[in-house]
């Protein structure tokens, strides 16, 4: 069994909002995605990834800002992890 992982960063906490960032990790070894390898996201929204067969397995929590740090900006907030799992004997 091999896992392919897709990470989508969305414009809001809604899964059907626009993709603003993305990462791929390929456990099958067939592709080698890396930093800065594409300018266009694989899907326009998180929902579009679901419709293409990706399974959501983690979504970032909605956490209130820490007191005194309400205006700070840091990591992208709306991170969603998807997977596709395939059976077989791929390396």
């Amino acid at each position, binding site marked *: 069994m091999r896992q392919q992982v897709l*990470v989508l960063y969305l414009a809001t906490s809604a899964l059907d909002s626009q993709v603003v960032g993305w*990462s791929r990790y390929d456990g099958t070894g067939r592709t080698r995605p890396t930093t*800065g*390898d594409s300018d266009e996201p694989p899907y326009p929204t998180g929902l579009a990834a679901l419709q293409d067969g990706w399974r959501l397995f983690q979504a970032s929590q909605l956490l209130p800002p820490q007191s005194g740090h309400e*205006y700070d*900006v*840091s*990591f992208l907030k709306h991170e969603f992890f998807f997977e596709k799992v395939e059976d077989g004997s791929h390396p």
Partner: protein
Amino acid sequence: MENYQHWAISAHDRYEQGTYVRRMSTSQQLLTSVQVARFVAQGFLRLDGVVPREINERAVVALTEGLPEVSYGTPLGKAFAPDTFVHELLALPVVAGAVESLVGPEPTVDHQAVHVREPHEGQAQPLHGDAIIDVRPDAFDIQLMYYPHEVTAEMGGTLSVPGSHLRRINETDVGRVQNLRGQTRLTCPAGTVVLVHHGIWHGGRRNDTADRRYMYKLRLNPTVPQVRLWDVSDLHDPAVTAELNTYFPWYEQATARLEIYNRVLLWRALTGDESFDVEYWVTRVSNRPTLRSHA
């Protein structure tokens, strides 16, 4: 050669009275307020193909052979011998003016580095900010990135993320993120200089060619308050506000507003104008009337 003129505050400075020092230069091409506002919004300034071919050719040789060590904190004026390519690079009026506009006269050298992306090396650097998390609200370092030869898309030019410099992350903690809408995958002609804010998210991309790719990096620390160091004659140009109000495609909808908020604070620090605002973002949430205000 530099001189200073005292300029009367204009009517645009609604809550300030008095005079301020405007920096003038006769030997350097200082940045305009619009250009500095763009730097505050985007976190970088590109100067494409500004370095002459002879300096580029000498630089490639020098970068191959290795550079003399420069100690942390060395004044820039004493760091590089006159016959070095770095000295000549920094003496170019367009480069000298941009550097002085951002970090002022007589900055010190933090460090320099030669970055090499090897042919077909197969892996990119993870996205990162340099050094360690650095959240100074009223000061910043710049990093000069110099590309002595042409950089094509296949050569893995530096990836950078416009508008990421105010995001508080520590080095490669953001490395999980591979791509962001609106990211810049640098391609440029030989002799290009990019000046970046210390906080910019960036990384060397994978080099898919058979040629080595070089980049020379020099980090500079200011030694004076970074207040109105540029040519401020266009300080109240509406284009300044337009630059500071730029949204980037990778911003989350809500956080984008916080980006503008934080830019306003930085612009206030750089101009000394505590009344400046964009779309009322800072003013609105700072409004705390007191009982005395009704007296």
